[in-house]
């Protein structure tokens, strides 16, 4: 089954909707349709230089091509806001926004992210003033241990920037790619439905 280049750069969740499970592995390895025809230039296996834009800051680092965006951020750049939990695209704790769309950072490679704008939860607050979504999570106690929280907040931001007044069903659907073990879901949902003042992205 053919994959478009675009599919490689959005979340695993998004392309699971459009491709069969057997294609996912190919997608993660990164063989696009057009490349498959022309033959891609080999990259790696050694370290390669990668330029990333994370939270508005340009970052240059050397990583092996197999390094995920999440690991590049956490272990190479010490940007630890997004968490590693399942490391295979099922729990959402690593959710970031790539050009405004939510994506699992554990399931995309750092080298795929060149030229993209990556946003993490660390970019949202202005000094000590929390982003409306973050404030709502605090007001409604939409967090406990907090390990899933950065991922939930980013999924909520992605939702509210495209749909500032979601219905409960829309909110649940938008958050369904995130798992919480402490059981904060009802209050996360309350927080998202009561967030005011998110501007369309």
């Amino acid at each position, binding site marked *: 089954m053919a994959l478009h280049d675009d599919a490689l750069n959005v979340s695993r969740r998004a392309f699971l909707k459009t491709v069969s499970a057997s294609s996912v592995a190919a997608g993660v390895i990164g063989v696009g349709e057009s490349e498959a025809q022309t033959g891609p230039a080999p990259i790696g296996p050694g370290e390669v230089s990668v330029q990333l834009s994370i939270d508005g800051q340009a970052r240059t680092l050397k990583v*092996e091509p*197999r*390094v995920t965006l999440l*690991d590049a951020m*956490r*272990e190479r750049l*010490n940007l*630890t*806001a*997004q*968490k*590693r*939990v*399942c*490391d*295979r695209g*099922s*729990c959402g*704790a690593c959710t970031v926004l790539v050009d405004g769309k939510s994506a699992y950072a554990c399931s995309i490679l750092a080298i795929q992210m060149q030229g993209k704008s990556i946003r*993490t*939860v*660390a970019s*949202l*607050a202005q000094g*000590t003033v*929390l982003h409306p979504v*973050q404030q709502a*999570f*605090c*007001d409604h*106690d939409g*967090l*406990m*241990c*907090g*390990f*899933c*929280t*950065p991922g939930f*907040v980013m999924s909520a931001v992605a939702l509210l920037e495209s749909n500032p007044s979601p219905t409960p069903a829309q*909110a*649940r*659907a938008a*958050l*369904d*790619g*995130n*798992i*919480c*073990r*402490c*059981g*904060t*879901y*009802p*209050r*996360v*949902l309350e927080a998202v439905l009561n967030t005011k003042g998110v501007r369309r992205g």
Partner: protein
Amino acid sequence: MADTPQVPEVNAPSRPQPHEKYPWPAEPTLVGKRIQRVDGPIKVTGQAKYSYDINRPGGLHGRILRSPHPHARIVAIDLSAASKAPGVKAVMAVLQPGAKVMFQGEEVAALAAATEEQADDALRLIKVQYEVLPHIATEALALREGAPQVFKDGNIKAGDTEEAGDLEAGFKAAAHTVLAGYATQVQTHVSLETHGCVCEWDGDKLTSWVSTQAVHGTREQFAKALDIPQANVRVITEYMGGGFGSKFGPDAQGIICAKLAKQAGAAVKLLLDRKDEHLASGNRPSSASKIKAGVSADGMLTAFDAETWGTGGAGAGSGFPLPYIYVFPNRRRKHRDIFTNAGPQRAMRAPGHPQGCFHTEMLMDELADKLRMDPLAFRIKNLPPEAPNAMWRKYFPIAAERFGWSKRHVTGDPTPGPIKRGMGCAANRWGGGGQGTKAHCEINPDGSVVMRCGTQDLGVGTKTIVAIITAETLGIPMELVRAEIGDSNYPFSGGSGGSTTAPGVSPAIRVTSGMALDALKAKVAPGLGVDAATLVASNGRIHVKGDPSKGLAWRDACKQLGMEPLAVDGQWERGLSASGTSGVQFAEVEVDIETGVSKVTRVTCVQDCGLIVDQLTAESQCIGGIIGGVNYALFEDRILDRVTGHMVNPNMEWYRIAGPSDIPTIDITLMNQPERGVIGIGEPPTISTAAAVANAVANAIGARIRSIPITPEKVITALAEREKTGGTL
């Protein structure tokens, strides 16, 4: 009645004499209110540094090679190729030739390398020769005739028989008997932050950032295993991503991490991956029963005779309390631990209780059905007498009213169409007392306050209650208080397990901040020309009781300390906490009889926990416990392949956990008992959800599924069975 009390805690002194010097305030300004957790902002901004987030300068990454076999003998381990691999700085064998591995995922060897990728590559170069031995994957295989005896003393360990009353007389008095068997699955903790730590040596001193529920206990275990003084070990856990009973020490990976760091002369980070977490970091044991029980014509329980068993994996126990809560005057219960080649069990939120509750509450519904009696009325008839720690007689009707129990159909939803609705209920109890906590309080000349306590916050809100109680006692806003916890350099507090943290920590904080306030009062009293004993602290002032004008603003009072902060040490004292909770839960489900899919639509919870310190976070604890119970009822299951003994779902998609769309509407009523002092709330609310859900499913479809998780397959099978026999329950 029974010779020995079935519920030992019931009617024990459960209301303390109030503390003489620092009793809980009659009209609190903060305690019991809806207070946001103090670490909310740092967590929602991603700034909170969990152990998993600690990156030390020059730090290495540790990896553990684990046995792929559930039972094998190590013949040889060759580390030479791995030790020469790029980036590798330390390599070690965990087991020596001749040693046995008893489960898939047991630690065999380990190494540390500069990057995670190098560590992964090098791990594949370690050559281990195994002599594969016969293994036992399931309880049924262990019990089979001629099963290989893989454990030293056999695959079965029989426990003591618990007996009370006269069983024969009990069955003679019975008008109806039920003979049934129930079962619960193995469940893993799935803390989102996996087990592990970062270890760094400075000479012979070790600092370790550990994801642990016990900073002091972990320090002690590090010292013992590494043969160094406890004084040389510092354990830090400022934030942690859940533990649920599974994180009480450095564990094998912590000791390995410390040894690798020592060998490499660099910090090593070693957090488990998700698969290893499922295999080797604990689980809730399975449980199974065969029960015969009798009930008299007027609905009184007469007899209970049970054989039970379960597996806690390789060599570990599987006990659970049975019967649960309800009074069976004549009873006998025999339990057997079945050993299997699987990761050993560990305490998991309310260890044993969800199992005991499930078996008993399923049985209660079946007995009520025999009597054609309302299961709620039947339960109330057979409860122990009411006591402060045994409030079910009061709570059941309150919850029933809120839930709408009167709308329950007798059995099998008669509504046409594929969606069938049903209702069920269950009760819970827990101890939840605590003690042995020390604290240190400093009041600074600028008015800021530090409260230090070597407890830890698993995500439940411990740091928040430390700040609440300090601010309440000093009569100041919480913003002036800095609560510092999660460090073994702070005064001792015990591990956070068994709902002991709030009742252990809260009294220590109350006493310590009370002592600090007394010291400050003594400083300012002469200037005010009054006796210090007449002073109180409220609304940010220290003033004569009943006359706020005769006193000082908090900051002005603190200025009188001059250059020297005031510092006091205090500890847990009697009279501010108690033990013993009770609660009830009701669940409503919708079952699609065409697909077999069950959905929990509503849960009503009435629960007490003594004096509520923070209404907001206590409610969150209940919500979280209930969702854990929904997972237990419908989704979670650690599945081992019968042939290979391998876990087939060591991840987070096939090991199923509820997501946002699976969550019921949850109604929490917390019953405040200020006169009892603080009691823990961690365990109780997760105990009875699964039992209530399973009873609701039976009520919906008119067929009883006697084991959890209630999967679509079990629903379809139960309905087919009912069709065949032509009956309902």
